[in-house]
């Protein structure tokens, strides 16, 4: 029995540490096209103190550690590139505080978005958070570690823009807090200093997020999805611009996909609105359709596909269903909203080349400040050729994002390299320095953002 395993058992107890193959198996895969990569140990701490001890141990032994939340990122980001210890954070899932009137909640970062949604629904029905469209097991920490976005991205931006305070275990095992919680006991603001943007979006390579204060927002009583459809992709940016001018939508997404046929070569803009009364809803529908979008309807080039359809949260992609075998992975890019037409056309081309029904989606972030555009590629897990096609398509899409001057969102290792090849040398140098300073032994999710 190895000394590392014994040390882990000592920290968390025998039930929560393992080096058994059958348990490591689960941690060697994710849902995407990545080849399996095996950790040597898996450990599931319950407290920050336990986590600190694990990190110290890893530092001492110079063993890699990979933080794992829901493992839903698909791009192999929580697979151990260099073996070592996978730290499963799902047991760190307490809700520490909800401040209803100041609209924030403090949680442990291993909590799932699904748990937050159901907790708020039950105890604070007038509040909501921005829930990503991922399966509900996705965690808050994992989502912040990749700069995720949820169903309030249009009014409020990235989920990482909605952070009011952060606690992190640094690669050397110390704790650091940022935001008002670092000065007093309140978790009500991230700004002004101390606020160091060194942990959000870094795939856990600079530290492990343990506590988060998340902004909450008004949850209105009625919520509905309205669909507007256009045939010409060139219209999409303007449709989004018109709707965002109103500033009334909660979530604003444009999609197109080959399957089902009703969506093929058409662009559906999903406009989520909410209100506390039928009058409020009708007011919003009126301004959306009868005012902002009426020019499209009158000229016959845009139409209301549906209104008042209730929509459950979160909305999870069904495109893994397009091929037998239930696999899909996507490239996400952050691009200007005006890139939608090109992203769609080029994506459909790539899909066509790889015999995959195309599926694209663009979610507006902020007031049309940018868009998360995703190209999904379905594959059959049991058919190597379809997996290869999907993998090649993903790589081609990463290159496409670079070509059109986008940035790849949550890039896999291949995409990270493309990004670093083009990165401003000053920024790259600074990232290197920061990484060296924070993680002198290079144990944090190595392989990811390998700037050194």
């Amino acid at each position, binding site marked *: 029995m190895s000394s590392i395993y014994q040390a882990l058992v000592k920290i968390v107890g025998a039930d929560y540490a393992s080096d058994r193959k059958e348990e490591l198996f689960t941690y060697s895969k994710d849902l995407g096209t990545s080849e399996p990569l095996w950790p040597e140990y898996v450990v599931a701490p319950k407290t920050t103190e336990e986590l600190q001890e694990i990190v110290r141990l890893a530092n001492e032994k110079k063993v890699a550690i990979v933080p794992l939340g829901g493992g839903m990122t698909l791009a192999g980001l929580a697979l151990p590139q260099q073996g070592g210890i996978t730290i499963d954070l799902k047991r760190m899932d307490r809700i520490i505080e909800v401040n209803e009137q100041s609209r924030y909640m403090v949680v442990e970062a291993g909590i799932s978005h699904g748990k937050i949604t159901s907790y708020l629904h039950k105890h604070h029905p007038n509040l909501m958070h921005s829930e990503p469209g991922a399966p509900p097991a996705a965690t808050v920490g994992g989502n912040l570690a990749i700069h995720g976005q949820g169903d309030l991205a249009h009014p409020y931006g990235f989920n990482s823009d909605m952070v009011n305070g952060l606690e992190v275990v640094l690669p050397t095992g110390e704790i650091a807090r940022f935001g008002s919680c670092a000065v007093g006991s309140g978790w009500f603001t991230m700004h002004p200093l101390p606020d160091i943007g060194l942990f959000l979006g870094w795939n856990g390579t600079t530290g492990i997020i343990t506590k988060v204060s998340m902004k909450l927002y008004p949850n209105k009583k009625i919520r509905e999805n309205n669909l507007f*459809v256009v*045939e010409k992709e060139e219209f999409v940016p303007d449709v989004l611009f018109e709707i965002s001018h109103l500033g009334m939508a909660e979530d604003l997404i444009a999609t197109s996909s080959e399957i*089902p*046929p009703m969506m093929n070569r058409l662009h559906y803009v999903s406009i989520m609105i909410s209100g506390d009364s039928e009058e409020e809803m009708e007011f919003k*529908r009126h301004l959306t359709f009868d005012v902002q979008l009426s020019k499209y309807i009158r000229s016959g*080039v845009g*139409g209301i596909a549906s209104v008042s359809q209730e929509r459950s949260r979160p909305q999870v992609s069904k495109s893994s269903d397009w091929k037998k075998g239930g696999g899909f992975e996507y490239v996400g890019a952050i691009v200007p909203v005006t890139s939608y037409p090109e992203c769609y056309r080029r994506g459909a081309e790539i899909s066509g080349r790889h015999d995959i029904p195309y599926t694209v989606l663009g979610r507006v972030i902020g007031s049309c400040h940018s868009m998360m555009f995703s190209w999904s590629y379905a594959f059959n897990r049991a058919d190597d050729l379809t997996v290869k096609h999907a993998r090649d398509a993903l790589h081609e899409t990463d290159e496409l994002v670079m070509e059109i001057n986008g940035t790849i969102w949550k890039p896999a290792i291949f995409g990270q390299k493309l990004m670093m090849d083009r990165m401003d040398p000053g920024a790259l140098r600074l990232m290197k320095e920061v990484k060296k300073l924070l993680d002198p032994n290079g144990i944090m999710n190595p392989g990811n953002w390998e700037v050194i």
Partner: protein
Amino acid sequence: MYELKFDPDLCLACDSNACLVKCQHMDIDQETARTEILKLCDGESSFVLQDCVTCYACEEYCPNGNHPFYLIVQKQEEFNLLPLPDPLVKSGIQVGIPFRGEPEIQEITGTALNMGVFSQLASRVEGRLFENLTIMSGDSRKMFHYFCQLMYLHYGKTSVINERLDKIIQTIAAHKVKEVVHFHDECFGTYTSYAPAFGIEVPFKSIHLFEYLYNKLLELRDDIKPLGYKVAYQRPCSSRLSPDKHPFVAKIFDLIGVEAADREYVDENAMCCGATILGQKKEGSRKYCAEIQKKNIDDMKKAGAQICVFNCPACMQTLGMPVSKQGIMPLFLSDLCRLAIGENAA
């Protein structure tokens, strides 16, 4: 290609012009009605083509069995005056394309129950009322092979119906079925009204769901416990193609002991659910749709309806939630019948 059997002489001799005079969505006096329908007969355009919301009702209003609605739709296509914006037309046309492989065709002895494109509602057709029927199109992946296509009347696209319908008829016929009960009366209307009007041959006999339910309830009469509710019926647009079957609603109500709510929008004056009007390109369509839906539901409330029964799943999808928000329970008529014989509604 198939041609509409429309007799202009009937219109020339017509002394009511009821098709357009009775239209709920246009205010037309008889003289104008006569002028406009004759224009259409002569192959000319008319404002009717732009203002028609495609509610199907003139098919029923015409006392002479001419087909004014089919004529209007055909002319909308001819003059490129489609009621819906282009992307909705494209998406609508694509909806009907099967994309999950071919259906498995098995021979059906006895009477079949055709679910059309509502395979997901198979749980609604369980219990004693349906026990002797064999379900056809029970697999939602294959259901578009059974799609009657009549929906394209709302799109001003008889060409699409005429292009695809024959194949659908062949698929149903391949089951070697003699008699088919249609879950959706749009299918019934397709095979008993549209197809004959265009000279399309249908090699099976169609039975309307309500007629079937009525006869079945007669058989189970001893098990019926009168329900005692006050019920409104949301007539679907396609029921205008089979007005002779409409009386079965009242007959069923009598049998199961419910009272028809005394409404303004009833029978010939029924109000459409508005689903198709919502997206039409004519200015103000969305508002108009909301307005008629409100009038319709207010009318149900005023008449004291406790339940609103539906035949058409699209009407249910459109009005089910709004009526329930007004305290009226939405139910398929078949479910109401199941309640009457002591079964649970799906």
